[in-house]
């Protein structure tokens, strides 16, 4: 298993390096360390969301409500900040994670207790959560000057040359790497997606594991909600509209099997970085903005084709000579 995953991640890493090389031929400044750090920082929200989505996809589910969850949590954070500018950022971060987790838990409960297919649940909550933003904000924006300085400063605060936003993404990568590889819950996510039937026989509660996957995904979306709103210093109904597809695309490019059970934190991160590099590079190397959509669409298609091919089993290999040859 290790071998296969790492080889897939290797291909993707190589693809990213090649892409950076090509970009550098047209715009050398792009690969300057400072700029790469900027690209990473810019991709951090996508990385965080992709980790959450990865867990959900691993358990054979999908969470289309992440972007709406992000927008709703972001709006709530912004409104709290406007109403009570004195509330410390730590509390706001906590509220963001908790509210995000709660919204995720709502998805999870419907999947777990009522056995409604995840795509249906999250298709529904996606519109419901967006609608709630409209209801609570009355459709109004929360603007930069209404937010407190501390609220806006947090994701930008630098430590060791990287902004907090980047550090948070790195922290999430580490936490979830350990969670996925070294805890019972993490392995249960793989088991549930790999063979739900067998998971039941193994004493793993499939629905409950899926519930937790949604809670994680929701919590990460909530965290990103605050980060997004404070980074762009604006909150309104439509922020991150359609971003859920980018998140799913990042996972797919990162080799997370949509059928569940296969994938890794590393893959999700690389998938997100791949998209992040494309998104950041296109405007810089002067590709007409009208080409962007077609290019990222093609990238997704090529990535799945490559991943699926790499993931295909070689068959049984019964013949002795074939066994030696392979």
């Amino acid at each position: 298993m290790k071998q296969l995953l790492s080889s897939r991640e290797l291909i993707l890493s190589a693809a990213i390096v090649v892409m950076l090389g090509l970009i550098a031929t047209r715009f050398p400044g792009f690969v300057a360390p400072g700029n790469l750090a900027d690209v990473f920082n810019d991709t951090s929200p996508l990385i965080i969301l992709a980790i959450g989505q990865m867990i959900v996809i691993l358990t054979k589910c999908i969470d289309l409500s992440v972007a709406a969850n992000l927008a709703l949590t972001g709006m709530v954070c912004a409104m709290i900040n406007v109403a009570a500018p004195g509330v410390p950022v730590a509390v706001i971060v906590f509220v963001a994670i908790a509210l995000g987790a709660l919204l995720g838990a709502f998805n999870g409960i419907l999947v777990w207790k009522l056995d409604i297919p995840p795509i249906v649940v999250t298709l529904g909550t996606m519109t419901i959560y967006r609608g709630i933003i409209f209801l609570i904000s009355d459709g109004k924006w929360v603007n930069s000057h209404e937010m407190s300085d501390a609220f806006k400063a947090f994701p930008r605060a630098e430590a060791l040359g990287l902004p907090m936003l980047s550090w948070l993404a790195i922290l999430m990568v580490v936490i979830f790497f350990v969670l996925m590889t070294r805890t019972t819950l993490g392995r249960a996510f793989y088991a549930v997606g790999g063979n739900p039937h067998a998971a039941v026989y193994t004493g793993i509660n499939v629905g409950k594991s899926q519930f937790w996957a949604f809670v994680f995904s929701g919590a990460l979306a909530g965290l990103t909600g605050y980060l997004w709103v404070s980074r762009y210093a604006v909150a309104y109904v439509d922020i991150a509209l359609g971003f859920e597809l980018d998140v799913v695309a990042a996972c797919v490019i990162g080799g997370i099997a949509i059928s569940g059970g296969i994938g890794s934190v590393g893959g999700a991160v690389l998938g997100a970085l791949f998209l992040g590099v494309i998104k950041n590079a296109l405007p810089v190397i002067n590709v007409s903005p009208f080409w962007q959509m077609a290019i990222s669409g093609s990238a997704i298609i090529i990535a799945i084709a490559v991943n699926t091919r790499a993931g295909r089993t070689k068959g049984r290999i019964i013949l002795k000579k074939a066994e030696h040859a392979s």
Partner: protein
Amino acid sequence: EDMRIALVVKALGIGFFEAAAKGAEEAAAELGDVEIIYTGPTDTTAEGQIEVINSLIAQGVDAIAISANDPDALVPALKKAMQRGITVISWDSGVAPEGRQMHLNPSSNALIGNMIIKLAADHLPDGGQVAVLSASATATNQNIWIDEMNKVMGDYPGIEVVTTVYGDDLADKSYREAQGLMQSYPDLDAIIAPTSVGIVAAAQAVADAGKVGQINVTGLGLPSEMAGAIDSGASKSFAIWNPIDLGYSAAMIAHALATEAATAEPGAAIPMGRMGSVTLDDTNSGAMADPFVYDSSNIEQFKSIF
């Protein structure tokens, strides 16, 4: 029974249109017997607006005043409205002439085009590089203004427009495009964003990149949304017409046409209450007023209004 005027906007929840709705309500209060239906689709699509128009036709409203997501796609639906005796005008973002009785431009396109480049040039006495961050590529008015701007570039020697990028009126995309501009053009002096979403995002990107004072963000924005950028210095000044006045005028015109107090025809002058009157050109469109410039001297006064 009250006269019902529908104020249809590109999408609900945009500060600019909320302010316009306020203006329309003001007109209604002034007129007395008018009810304003403020409505629009969830996202900025023509299909969404058509559904809204259909339901307005079904309710038999007296007038529709629309800021269009698409100048052409709405024509059939609006034609149907006119056939059923509904007065149709467009404002802000126009509809093709056959789909409305008249169009109210917030200001003259030439004036706006000149204004946005002038705002940038005023702070660049020695000339310099400017880039344009536009809204969604399908927005009707953006490109007209940019065209008008290009026409008068000769008046601003030394100012070079290096590129135009599109932020699709999404905060994050506009932000990223602004970042891209700063990288691609290290000597950039100004970013012109003739869109209220783009200008805010660009100002934020400039502030985050630590280039306040180096790059001036200007264009069209709302005082309430731009107050922070003026404070931080990322934007020295920007312009906008007063959306409250715009909504007010649209409602006044719709009322005048619907009561047949005025007729929309080339050359006609249509009264707009406290805003005076608008004179129609040969495409039956007219301009409301000049854009107004906001900077640190007056931002405090306006940021809580719209």
